[in-house]
């Protein structure tokens, strides 16, 4: 089995930052695995501006932010990028297997960084009663359809959940000519940034119903309407407050959950509720030499902090390999 100093799984902003930082700390040989055909992760579909204000002091779109790192990674001879490579197995001995077109590869790593990101919570995880017609999508999946595939999920949409992804998608659909009829939020404030409430909803006259919930989705083959009801402080339905909104599409934006199957396979301790590694500090796992960073470690709102913390993961891996800190300046002058 081939040996590598460091194998990183996931080529999003976390994996790329970790790879570059590990290299800067002296790791000679990095293998970066990404299942997609491009680096960049979820940023490829986040085409709106709002990334990099801290790290680059400029407001970039997701692809622009990812592109700056992909360029650096591409130019670094010590990082081998393997695209269309899906990691499917990991054990305590840090033996990793991955599928790439036409082959199942195996590699023994001296250290591993898992940067596999998040997946979306689905309607099934937040029960909304009603039939199961077509037209109900997780908001991030809809983002991918519209921004990468170029097709619209429907003509009249209701968005459930007012996190940033839901807000950003409300604007995106409105710009594309979809009638966005409402954003429904259970809590009494939006979970997203206020600037997104302003520039994504108010700019387009989209109503935000706080302290409301979707009580029923109607429709046989395709969504026809949703029932909405107001809730009180204890989240009980307020009698007589119900109303219906006709629509053919419902986007569900109810949060993200870290993707940590590989870590689980390797037998590391996992927090069952949050699906995150159990460890004394950020980026560590219960297995020495196996690190986690970015959205796989905890759900981040801002990619700038993903970059910052993932750089630390790269340095931790270097330290674990006995490399770590560069020699102090006086050594160099001797």
């Amino acid at each position, binding site marked *: 089995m081939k040996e590598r100093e460091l194998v990183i799984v996931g080529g999003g902003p976390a994996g790329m930052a970790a790879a570059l930082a590990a290299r800067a700390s002296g790791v000679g040989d990095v293998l970066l695995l990404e299942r997609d*055909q491009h680096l960049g992760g979820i940023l490829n579909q986040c085409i709106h501006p709002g990334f990099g204000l801290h790290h680059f002091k400029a407001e970039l779109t997701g*692809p*622009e932010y990812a592109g700056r790192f992909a360029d650096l990674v591409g130019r670094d001879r010590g990082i081998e990028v393997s695209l269309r490579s899906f990691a499917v197995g990991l054990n305590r001995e840090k033996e990793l297997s991955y599928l790439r077109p036409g082959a199942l590869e195996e590699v023994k790593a001296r250290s591993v960084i898992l940067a596999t990101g998040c997946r979306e919570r689905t309607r099934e995880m937040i029960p909304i009663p009603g039939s199961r017609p077509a037209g109900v999508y997780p908001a991030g999946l809809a983002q991918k359809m519209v921004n*990468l595939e170029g097709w619209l999920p429907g003509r009249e949409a209701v968005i459930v959940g007012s996190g940033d992804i839901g807000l950003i998608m409300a604007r995106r659909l409105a710009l594309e000519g979809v009638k966005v009829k409402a954003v429904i939020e259970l809590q009494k404030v939006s979970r997203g940034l206020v*600037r997104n409430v302003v520039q994504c909803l108010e700019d387009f006259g989209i109503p935000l119903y706080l302290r409301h919930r979707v009580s029923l989705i109607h429709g046989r083959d395709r969504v026809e309407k949703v029932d909405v009801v107001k809730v009180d402080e204890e989240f009980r339905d307020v009698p007589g407050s119900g109303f219906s909104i006709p629509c053919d599409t419902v986007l569900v934006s109810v949060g993200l959950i870290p993707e940590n199957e590989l870590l689980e396979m390797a037998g590391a301790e996992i927090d069952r509720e949050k699906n995150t590694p159990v460890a004394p500090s950020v980026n560590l796992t219960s297995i020495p030499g196996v690190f986690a960073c970015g959205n796989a470690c905890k759900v981040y709102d801002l990619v700038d902090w993903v970059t910052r913390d993932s750089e630390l993961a790269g340095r931790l891996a270097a330290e674990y390999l006995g490399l770590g800190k560069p020699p102090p300046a006086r050594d160099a002058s001797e």
Partner: protein
Amino acid sequence: MKRPMTCIACPQGCFMEVETDGSRLIGVSGHKCSRGAAYARQEIEAPVRTLTTSVLTRGLELKMLPVRSSKPIPKEKLFAAMDAVKLITVTSPVKAGAVVAADFLGLGVDLVACRELGSGLDS
């Protein structure tokens, strides 16, 4: 006339109070930095937004190319801009930052590519 306004120039989202005479800014408070005051003036006098969207491609490695306006455009032109974007098809490989449409809608801003996109031949 005084009214509340949220600064959207950065994720802080400061709650400001602006005073106007209907079309011009007279006073502003609540902003944590000078960009807030500049935003308030712009928003009262001529609100602008950066347009980000994606355009159709043909023969390239992805079906859609993400693009942005090189500078913010008047808010009331957003939908006209979207209509014009739908008429564009990109057919040759681009680098990030390449101009996809120059002087877009005569607004003095360019539509630029947000990523590199190669030809679809190798995939």
